[in-house]
């Protein structure tokens, strides 16, 4: 039977997972909000980050949470470079091209990882996944609690960065009015690349938070990317609080769905939900941008 | 009976009323002008007539039948053709292909559509550019292309949204006779225009829209002397000041 405490535990677990989903979605929505492009390589870049966490942690024996700061910086630079010197120039300023270029990148990255690491699924050694905290009647996973805390912290930091710093103001200016920002002396290409870099840094953090309880294989990012797209569409394209709330909501829906419907149908559930969200939101909200 | 009759249409965008209880009628065979200051709601009114904008209230009737709910493509099939103020060429197609899209509306065969497109394009002075990509045209060329495409649909009513804006005086001088010739062939014309010289030359009936309301109508000379019209353009009290200076 589904006792209230089982359901409550599923809801809380959903919230914990949802916070990390939100972090993945946050990177996506930030890039969309500023560059007005959909980064199709987001999932592949997440996979990349997860492999990096796995390699540093299992290979070099680093504490998994200590891998986050250097990887965040590395991915900030990687994202910056990708947008500035690959995606931007290759797309010739056309949204359709951007989609195809990022699709091409995602295919190359995913299969590059496949060639390097084969299709095997890997997890971190150690038993962090079973480290639980008792909270009233509920048993909660400690890494997930940490994940929730860090994800919320990063979201708040990001918000503060956008609201308070000069770089943040420049990013918001470019998001609102590219031409005006450019006339005011802001280097739009630099801001685009910086935003893309921030989006990728979010992925590096998310990867570090996911790895203790999750697995990685070359295709793992695909599952996350559609979840992230669902969240972003649900929360409103480009909205930071929307991504956060949407992420938490999707986390709970997925957790309850898994509880009531079983795991295999839950997999299709995300895609069906994505389709429904796209179809039922009024066309004007996102149909206007061709 | 008038070919087109717009009765009391209103359109709200959120809290803004773009068009407020506006009415106008266009008799068959006439050239009617629609003028007004920037932001008066002229283009929204054109959108309502051509079916791109749904009115919040009021109705549009065409040849005696109510067409308020008819989508744009059905109105084009019924004989209402429009141009866009911000030109909308099919950039990847050649000039003649652009015009042929319009001609295909009533001529399913490729040979017919191409021949008609070539004729109309040549007539509108696009002859040398027919096989060039539309994206290569100048502003004046694109305006002509808009006109040519709309004309190729074989309309009974042509809605011209600022086809003269952005053209230099000699280009305007070239295009005015074209509009007169189109009308002489029996096409009724309703035009939004800022170039007053052209309006005074072409139109026999004028409507003035200001802040969404129709504030004046009549023949061009009377309308332009109307104090309400002068105030709408030049600000409150302008008419009185002009009177005292005169």
């Amino acid at each position: 039977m589904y006792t209230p405490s089982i359901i409550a535990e599923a809801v809380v677990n959903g919230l914990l997972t949802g916070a990390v989903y939100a972090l993945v979605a946050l990177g996506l929505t930030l890039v969309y909000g500023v560059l007005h492009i959909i980064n199709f390589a987001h999932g592949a870049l997440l996979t990349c980050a997860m492999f990096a966490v796995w390699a540093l942690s299992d290979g070099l024996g680093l504490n998994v949470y200590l891998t986050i700061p250097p990887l965040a910086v590395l991915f900030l630079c990687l994202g910056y470079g990708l947008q500035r010197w690959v995606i931007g120039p290759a797309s010739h300023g056309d949204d359709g091209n951007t989609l195809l270029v990022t699709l091409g990148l995602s295919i190359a990255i995913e299969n590059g990882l496949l060639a390097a690491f084969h299709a095997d699924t890997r997890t971190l050694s150690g038993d962090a996944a079973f480290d639980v905290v008792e909270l009233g009647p509920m048993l909660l996973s400690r890494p997930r609690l940490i994940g929730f805390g860090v994800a919320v912290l990063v979201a708040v930091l990001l918000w503060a960065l956008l609201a308070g710093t000069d770089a943040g103001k420049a990013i918001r200016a470019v998001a609102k009015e590219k031409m005006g920002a450019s006339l005011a002396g802001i280097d739009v290409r630099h801001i685009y690349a910086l935003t893309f870099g921030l989006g990728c840094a979010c992925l590096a953090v998310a990867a570090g938070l996911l790895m203790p309880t999750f697995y990685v294989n070359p295709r793992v990012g695909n599952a996350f990317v559609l979840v992230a797209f669902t969240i972003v569409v649900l929360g409103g394209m480009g909205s930071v609080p929307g991504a956060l709330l949407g992420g938490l909501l999707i986390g709970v829906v997925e957790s309850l769905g898994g509880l009531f419907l079983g795991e295999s149908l839950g997999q299709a559930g995300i895609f069906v939900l994505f389709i429904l969200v796209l179809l039922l939101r009024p066309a004007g909200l996102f149909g206007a941008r061709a | 009976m008038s070919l087109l009759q717009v009765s009391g249409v209103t359109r709200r965008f959120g809290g803004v009323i773009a068009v407020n209880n506006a009415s106008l009628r266009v008799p068959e065979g006439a050239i009617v002008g629609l003028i007004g200051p920037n932001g008066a709601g002229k283009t929204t009114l054109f959108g309502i007539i051509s079916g791109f904008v749904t009115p919040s209230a009021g109705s549009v009737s065409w040849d005696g039948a109510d067409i308020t709910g008819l989508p744009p493509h059905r109105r084009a099939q019924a004989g209402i053709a429009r141009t866009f103020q911000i030109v909308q060429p099919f950039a990847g197609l050649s000039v003649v292909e652009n015009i042929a899209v319009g001609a295909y509306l009533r001529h399913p065969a490729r040979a017919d559509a191409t021949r008609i497109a070539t004729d109309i394009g040549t007539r509108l002075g696009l002859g040398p550019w027919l096989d060039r990509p539309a994206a290569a045209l100048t502003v004046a060329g694109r305006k002509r292309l808009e006109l040519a495409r709309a004309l190729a649909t074989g309309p009974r009513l042509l809605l011209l949204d600022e086809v003269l804006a952005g053209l230099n005086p000699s280009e305007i001088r070239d295009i005015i006779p074209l509009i007169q010739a189109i009308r002489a062939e029996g096409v009724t014309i309703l035009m939004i225009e800022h170039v007053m010289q052209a309006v005074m030359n072409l139109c026999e009936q004028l409507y003035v829209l200001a802040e969404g309301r129709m504030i004046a109508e009549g023949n061009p000379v009377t309308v332009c002397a109307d104090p309400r019209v002068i105030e709408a353009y030049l600000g409150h009290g302008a008419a009185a000041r002009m009177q005292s200076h005169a």
Partner: protein
Amino acid sequence: MNKPTLAPVAVLLVVLAVVPAFAANTTINFLVSALIVTLAAQGWNLLGGFCGPFSFGHAAFFGTGAYVTAVLQSRYGVNAWAGFAAGIAAGAVVGGAIGWLSFRAGLRGSYFALITLAFAEVFRIVANAVPLTGGATGLLLKLDVRPANFQFASRAAFAWIALGCVVAVLALSIAIARSRLGAQFAAVRENEDAARALGIDVLATKLRAICLSGAVTAAAGGLYAQYFLYLDANIAYGSWISVEALLAVIVGGIGTPAGPLFGALALHALGEATKLFAGAITGIDLVLFGLILVGAIAFAPAGIAGSLHSLSARWRR
């Protein structure tokens, strides 16, 4: 099709028609795979190239064509040719359904691409789970070599049938490009508002495009089922075919009738060459495909057909 590209296409088709008569089985295998991808890409091109909407989920049509062809024979004893025809019809129906839902909701650009991807994934997960399609073990077609059963003793015969389909769709594409329907497709692709103002029913036009597109790509799926006589969800509805259909068109020349043929042949040749040099490293050919996609967008947006066109234009000058 413009005249400059006509000659190379004709030569290419003659070569493709002659090769199976002499070639070894491995060559014919290569050819049939490339032609099946060509057909799938021709379907993609009718929608994405001619009419505008980019699909990331043409596997939905490929898989439907494949499964309908296969399931009708293996479970219901329907004749293979009739099953093939039904598969093509089913592709059109699935295209119409996906198109009706998404175009009516106003989805364009990236959103349309993403929703087609999601549809293909739902189909894949369902096909992987339900007994009708054989679930995860897949579906094996009974070997019964009779022309009446769409199975042939010689592989060459099958290559010619695949080539016949490709040529038929090529002719259809050229006819469409030169017709009113083609002009309507192009108008909708270039500017929907302007198309509407000129009397074009944009929704109906897009639905025509996606039904045609779905039918053609489903034919590719049906051919796949008949040639390899085995299907599973990851083959039929897998993202590989969505990617290859799109990639062949981009590389070959988007919106040109012959683009898919050029693109699919070039990609397959390249894929084989990579396998030859890089050995058995899984995924290395796809890494190359991904990079080619980026490179094609960056440096050759008109594709092979476009480059041929400008080359021959320069030659004449």
